[in-house]
């Protein structure tokens, strides 16, 4: 303790001295990215991985010379998964010189940030801030609440549900479905669209439960699992993420609940460990833009390097698309001016992390890319080298959704500067 606190103090002092020397010079020379996500509390497990991903990407891009002659720099701001706190942190990031903010965990936070960025840019012409969203999937962000300053790299919730329900459609073993989601904008929109799509595609399926629970506050899901069990469900659909997914599956494992799980975020930190405990071999499905075992050789190399460095899987391949495209856009615009970079991003086509071509739709700033459904279970180590969290189980791709099948319409009426 004493030794480490001394070391910490010494490092701090050293850092302070260094920053006095070259702080002023650095401040103007880097492209600062404010990373606003939970770095404490129940959301921190995925927030930390996100920050590491962006740090990894900044190093990768800087090794190639950065963009427009400048190096990237990412600074983490802890928003505690709280919309109000996020606005304070966004202001802090901008005060520290960031003109780009990025966030992903929580659509409630995302909606607040979109409003904030719109207002800020209106009041500060010439100093526009861009908001790059790598994971908040509430459809509203690229529909009614769409903004010229916001770009989203993850497929929105409706797109994911469309793909999952298409996959479920021919499976006759699905008879009773239970919905369990977090009680906020994303969870509510997911349950509504799941009901609508199931009704249209499989009217014979009975929805035996439709649960909303508090976001990131439940520490014991046993009562919910007891209810799922009593409902006689054979299938559960959930958009739960971070701790809310890991603990849900942990409680399911304890009670011995034997159902199929259709999820958005089963791959998040703690998720694979909990799935392994349930013993549900290839019965937990997730929809993502790429799985480590089915990627291009280049992506496999990245996966290896990332695991060697941080001892965790590449949880956000979309962050790779986001940052690499941002660098390309800054180079194209030869400027870090918010409006110019945004214009360069609109309509941009890009070879995505998992292979294939993706593009940003100009109408609503939604990024489109091929999506994949995978199942989690035992793997053939010779062909599938990557397991998750040391469980010996890994992801296996079972369905591909072509880009044309992900193209849902939108109601966005964007005001351009």
């Amino acid at each position, binding site marked *: *303790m004493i030794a480490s606190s001394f070391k910490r103090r010494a490092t701090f002092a050293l850092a302070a001295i260094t920053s006095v020397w070259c702080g002023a010079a650095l401040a103007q020379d880097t492209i600062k990215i404010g990373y606003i996500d939970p*770095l*404490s*509390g*129940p959301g*921190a*497990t995925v927030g*930390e991985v996100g920050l590491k991903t962006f740090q990894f990407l900044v190093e990768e891009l800087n090794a190639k010379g950065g963009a427009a002659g400048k190096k990237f720099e990412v600074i983490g701001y*802890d928003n505690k998964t709280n919309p109000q706190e996020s606005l304070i942190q966004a202001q802090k990031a901008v005060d520290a010189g960031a003109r780009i903010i990025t966030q992903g965990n929580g659509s409630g936070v995302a909606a607040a940030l979109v409003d904030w960025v719109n207002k800020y840019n209106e009041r500060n012409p010439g100093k526009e801030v861009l908001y790059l969203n790598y994971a908040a999937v509430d459809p509203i962000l690229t529909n009614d609440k769409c903004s010229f300053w916001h770009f989203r790299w993850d497929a929105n919730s409706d797109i994911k549900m469309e793909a999952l329900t298409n996959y479920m459609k021919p499976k006759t073993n699905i008879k009773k479905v239970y919905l369990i989601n977090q*009680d906020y904008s994303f969870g509510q929109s997911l349950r509504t669209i799941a009901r609508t799509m199931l009704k249209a595609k499989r009217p014979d399926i009975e929805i*035996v*439960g439709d*649960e*909303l*629970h*508090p976001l990131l*506050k439940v*520490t*014991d899901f*046993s*009562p*919910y699992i*007891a*209810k799922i*069990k*009593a*409902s*006689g469900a054979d299938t559960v659909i959930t958009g739960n993420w971070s*701790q809310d997914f890991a*603990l849900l599956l942990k409680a399911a494992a*304890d*009670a*011995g*609940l034997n159902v199929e799980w259709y999820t958005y975020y089963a791959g998040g930190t*703690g998720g694979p460990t909990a799935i392994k405990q349930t013993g549900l071999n290839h019965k937990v499905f997730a929809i993502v833009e790429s799985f480590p075992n089915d990627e291009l050789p280049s992506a496999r190399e990245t996966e290896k390097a990332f695991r060697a460095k941080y001892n965790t899987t590449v949880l956000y391949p979309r962050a790779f698309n986001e940052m690499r495209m941002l660098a390309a856009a800054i180079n194209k615009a030869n400027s870090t001016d918010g409006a110019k970079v945004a214009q360069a991003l609109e309509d941009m086509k890009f070879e995505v992390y998992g292979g294939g071509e993706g593009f940003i739709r100009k109408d609503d700033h939604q990024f489109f890319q091929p999506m994949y459904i995978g199942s989690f279970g035992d793997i053939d180590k010779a062909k599938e080298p990557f397991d998750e969290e040391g469980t010996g189980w890994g992801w296996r791709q079972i369905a591909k959704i072509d880009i044309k099948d992900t193209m849902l319409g939108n109601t966005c009426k964007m005001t351009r500067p």
Partner: protein
Amino acid sequence: MGRASSLPLNLWDGATGNWVVSFGTQHFLIKRRGNVLELVLISTLNGVLYGLLLFLMASGLTLIFSMMGVLNFAHASFYMLGAFVGYQISKWAGFWPGLIFAPLIVGGVGMLVERFGLRNVHKNGHVAELLFTFGLAFVMEELVQIVWGKAPVDYRVPALLDFSAFTIFSTNYPAYKLFMLAISLAIFVGLFAMLTRTRVGLIVQAALTHPNMVAHLGHNVPLIFMLVFGVGAGLAAIAGVIAGPALVTQSTMAGLLGPILFVIVVVGGLGSLSGALVASLLIGLLQTFAISSNVSMADLFSFSGFAPQPNTILNDLWRVSVAQIAPILPYLLLVLMLIFRPTGLMGNRES
């Protein structure tokens, strides 16, 4: 919506197990959803377990509150500290040494806090004490974050107890939860025996109801205060050690449980250990069963032949299910209790 004109006619559809209740021309299908008995049994077990865990913490809090008049805001922080110290010891020496030493260490910390913090602040009155414990809660959270980080730590259930103890219908019940139940019950029995059968217990009980009288009789009240504070912190730490592996061990765990403890102290009644037990079980069961229920206001009213139209004002309010409001039920109980029975269920004095 037509009003009910005739008596309800109940029909049980034997093939599906569903009930059809008819009011005049209105028919309501009540679906039989799986095994209700199973749900009730499992929910009872879950509720009792949660309640007993709450009691481990509330017992210390209510003792401290009743004797010293201090509403200890930092009490749940001792629970958190217990979980982290237990986790650390389990990394070095395994789960079982953690179960024994973590509560002793945290109890010791509690005594130091009382001796060198609270006792000095005491001179400046209750408001100062309240603010002291309020600040202490934040300090402890920050300290834990500095030492163990902000993300949850990987506190594992001991391998010895990592299996399912029994199966009710088709639901497994983990052995570890059974162990939690047993520990909580043993501590309640031990605490109760100590308070009612020993000399120290008698003095503590006397100090609960008549603190000034006990001091006048020549007992060393500050020493009793220190011991009670230490024991209270130690009990909270035991709760932390056994709950840590089953729930999540993270620095925010104090904040999630803290407010519920105050509800228990108020509902149970000042100075009553059995009140705290009853209130803990009540809230544990209330929350667990509320989650298992799907009933909403709209459902209740639909039986009277009146159902709110969809898409009317307050539509959302009508359709909110009991499960969704489960987290606020304890606080509703707190408010009602303060209005209608300020002394709590079993309390016998007001201040």
